[in-house]
């Protein structure tokens, strides 16, 4: 019934589903990293570096990066539509969030893949 929408997927269901799926990915990654650190108390640089060299870890990490981007965009979009009532300010905030999300993803890929 609200037809003009600038949210992530432009559909309530899609946003809601992505929010939940990305939350699961983020929690799995968190549990994995904490578990890995606990199981390897004498972690060396080589071991840590080898972990992030592995293809499956790169896929997992990229998935997490994209999930952070999506999750935060959907969340912050919701917050801005709740609390920022002035259209100009809201648009500016949403654009800024979009930009920051994009920067973090590109930067994160660079860091994780050692490009």
């Amino acid at each position, binding site marked *: *019934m*609200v037809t003009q929408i600038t*949210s992530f997927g432009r559909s*309530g*269901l899609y946003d809601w589903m992505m929010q939940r799926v990305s939350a699961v990915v983020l929690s799995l990654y968190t549990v994995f990293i904490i578990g890995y650190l606990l199981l390897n108390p004498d972690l060396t640089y080589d071991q840590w570096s080898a972990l992030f060299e592995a293809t499956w870890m790169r896929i997992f990490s990229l998935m997490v990066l994209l999930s952070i981007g999506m999750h935060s965009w959907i969340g912050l979009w*919701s917050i801005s539509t709740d609390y920022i009532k002035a259209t100009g300010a809201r648009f500016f905030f949403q654009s800024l969030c979009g930009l920051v999300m994009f920067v973090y993803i590109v930067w994160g890929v660079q860091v994780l893949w050692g490009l």
Partner: protein
Amino acid sequence: MLVSIYRYNPEKDDAPYMQDYDIELPAGKDLMVLDVLNLLKAQDPSISYRRSCREGVCGSDGMNMSGKNGLACITPVSEAVKKGKLVLRPLPGLPVVRDLVVDMGQFYKQYEKIRPFLINDAPAPAIERLQSPEEREKLDGLYECILCACCSTACPSFWWNPDKFVGPSGLLQAYRFLADSRDTATQERLSDLDDPFSVFRCHGIMNCVNVCPKGLNPTKAIGNIRTMLLQRAT
């Protein structure tokens, strides 16, 4: 007992204020909040509030009693008093007409949006549209809503977006018609709700469940609407 009432008469007052009344309650009886208001009204006829059936059926006297929304007529004073004081305010989030009387226009507009009536294009049968007892059972916990607005005005999502978010009360009714075996507009109804505001602005904090004077569960109904949308889309 000390009763503090939200007073605002737009014709006379620049701003709303709280007025304190000291009232002697009959001993040995636990009055309802509405009875206290009636006693006060006899003292000060300028106090305004809505009431009608005085037994929790009409939904007119929804108000905020010491911080919690409810119907004044079925809320015992002993339950509503906090620290020896009864604080009465209008339902939060809706424009105040006067004292405890709010403008329910926005609330009704959302109710109207979900088309709260049976839609069935098939020609009406001679006697009635039959339903099995199991199909009828699905409407229990949905049809009992009296539209008192206690739930929607306890919902922060409704406070921030009363024009876009349908609110717990409207969504409970939306599901009441989605779940009705006699209704044939299920797909159109679902399409109308699939935007980021109408249903999905609900974050499941369950304030609505906490205050509903009829003990209904709008959060569960909203969850069911989500499931229906998900089943349709995947």
